[in-house]
């Protein structure tokens, strides 16, 4: 955890389809295997329902749905990343969790004009690591929007 260089940030990297995405590790509480999720009537479209995480009720959001990707079945690689934003816990379903990376701020490129399925308000920037490109996500914006729909 101890960062010697201030500009280094650690990200959890996960996969949706073939794309890699990163979220700030500071927001992440735990990573869980796929569990039973109870559907909540009248919940926003990309909110899959609520799950029981060791006695706590936590809403679960599907990032695939939110990013407008096609629905696929859950596999044994599917994970729920439990994130904490402003004291509220939320689970996000991703295809696979890959690794933890460190990216220097200077390595992050601001991408206002990348066209794609994801809204620019959801993206912090793009990080380059060795042979891969990771889209860094603005989690608070994503979560807020997921529940706003």
């Amino acid at each position, binding site marked *: 955890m101890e960062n010697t260089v201030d500009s280094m940030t650690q990200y959890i990297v996960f996969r949706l389809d073939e794309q890699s995405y990163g979220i700030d590790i500071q927001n992440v509480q735990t990573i869980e295997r796929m569990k039973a999720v109870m559907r909540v009537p009248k919940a926003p479209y990309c*909110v899959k329902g609520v799950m029981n995480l060791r006695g706590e009720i936590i809403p679960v959001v599907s990032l695939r749905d939110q990013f407008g990707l096609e629905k696929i079945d859950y596999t044994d690689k599917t994970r729920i990343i439990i994130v904490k934003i402003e004291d509220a816990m939320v689970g996000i379903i991703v295809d696979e969790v890959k690794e933890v990376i460190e990216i220097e701020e200077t390595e992050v490129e601001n991408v206002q004009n990348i066209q794609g399925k994801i809204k620019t308000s959801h993206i912090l920037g793009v990080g380059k690591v060795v042979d891969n490109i990771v889209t860094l996500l603005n989690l608070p914006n994503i979560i807020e929007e997921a529940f706003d729909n």
Partner: protein
Amino acid sequence: MEVSQYLNMFIEESKDNLQRLNENLLKLENNPDDIQILNEIFRVAHTLKGMAGTMGFVRMQKLTHNIENVLSDIRSGSIKINSDMVDTLFMCLDALENYVEEIVNTSSEGTDDHNDLIENLAEIIKSKGEVTHTETPVVDQETKEEKTAGNLIELPDTQKLVKNNAIEMGMNVFQIKVDLSPNCVLKSARAFVIFTDLERFGEIIHCIPSTQDIEDEKFENDFTVVVVTKEIKEKLEQVIMSVSEVEGVTIEAFAKDHDAKIEEVALKKEEQAEAHPTASVTPANSETNNSSNNKQVSNKTVRVNIDRLDTLMNLVSELIIVKTQLEGLNVTSQDANTNYNDSVEYLERVTTNLHDAVMKVRMVPVEIVFNRFPRMIRDISRKLGKDIDLVMSGEETELDRTVIDEIGDPLIHLLRNAADHGLETIEERATIGKPRKGTIKLQAYQDGNSVVIEVEDDGKGINVQAIKNKAVQKGTITKEEADAMNEQEALDLLFRPSFSTAEKISDLSGRGVGLDVVKSKITELGGHVEVQTELGKGSKFIVRLPLTLAIIQALMISIGDEKYAIPLSNIQNIEDVRKEDIKLVQNQEVIMVRNEIIPIVRLHSVLGLPEQEDKDLMMGVIVKKGERQVGFIIDSLIGQQEIVIKSLGKYLSGIDIIAGATILGNGEVALILDINSLI
């Protein structure tokens, strides 16, 4: 002295005492000649002053002392009570409350001396009567106590009778004032020793403060007892002085005619404390405690009846018995299964009882909230120039502590509304032939698994048509919607947020100020609020609150492959519904149950599940909210279960048909239906 550990106690008791002062001052204003009330006020103020002094809150002590000066002049008859004076006294109480608030927050009383109030108090003494206490404040405390010591206390009537009878029979009746050494640590223990000693020689018929207060150490360094005895006073004196840490004894004899004092003896035992080692009980590490205890001040506490604690204790003992039973279970034996089942059944019973008992411990009477209202209504009525009578009932009704803490503000809101907008002015009331005095009724009662609090006024009522017009004008609803609305639906408009901001609504209907805030608070607590009104006669706001929050009895049902819980308190009964029984009335599906027409709701469609073909025989759960009933069509019943309510969290709080979730025995999540929003 190790003060900080008593801070919590001090805060609790000061709040109590201030509340008592408020109540009694109100009473006194209405019965200015009642010496009993005045004595009570005096006594409480004195206790408060003493406690503040002990805790080192000098400013608080000084203000209370000045209040006491005024009270003492009122008691001696040199000042007559009037409303302005009571206003000043109330302001002083508010200032004292501020001190306590400050102590709660920062552990110190702050720096406000409230000199203006002290001057006001001095002014009262100067202008309305001869100045009896010209000495500088605080210092004359001793002088006055000397003075009171010379007086015989006023006995309650029954004790007076006992006393007179005793004297007739040739017994002695003494009033004994015992002064304990100021650094006495176990005051109540000393008092107890003295009580036991005295009881060897006679009978204690009265004591000040009450035995309860003495046991709880709610007194300063002195207390007074009245004893009926055959002994002479020197004997008693000797007995009491032999108890350690007694600094002095004053014994006076009662005569049959209670005003005539026969004789008086005062003794002083000098520096008694030094001769006894008890003073060393104060631990050396008190310094460290002082600094570390500062943060505990705002702990929430509940006062618990000792009986309830005993019940808890008993239940825990039973739990231990079950545990031993299970431990001793011989798995290989033949009746292992039966024994096991017995134990589990027993365990179930104990845990249910335990739950009830713990819940009861958390229950506090609504009185705690209600008792500040008379004062508030008094202030409002003076400000508005209206004559208002506040009638309260059902103060003993109990609610969960968490609900009690939150319900105050909404109720204040409703009461203010009733006083301000509901009741007409005196002139208006006179012209329409209503009694001059407006009445606001505040009543609480338990109804099934909920507690109902009603705020009712006999004012002008709410003009339903005016609300509709306003709502249409504001674009909240359309003209057609307005026409289709019944009275209840129109009244519900009052609780919509858009109404609260509109000041003009009060010109029309006299309502709508911040009612949405009231509603959201009450909904947050799991309750709901509705209003009944009759134009010209008055209106009634009915607040319905759940008895407890955390754990409820629920009926588990399944719809599709999902499980839901319906709070049992909402359920009236369960009926078989035949396909052909469902009729259409004005496009609404209804069923007839025992000659009542009940609209039905198909939970499948409400909960967003695929609709199903009607089976020939379906199951209906009839739920009720207040007077309204609705039948839910469900797939099957799972059974009754005790569930722990958990919130869905802030992100999903907007979903009104779901009240929360619960975790079932197998770890699955089931959602709890919010009946209030489904009906």
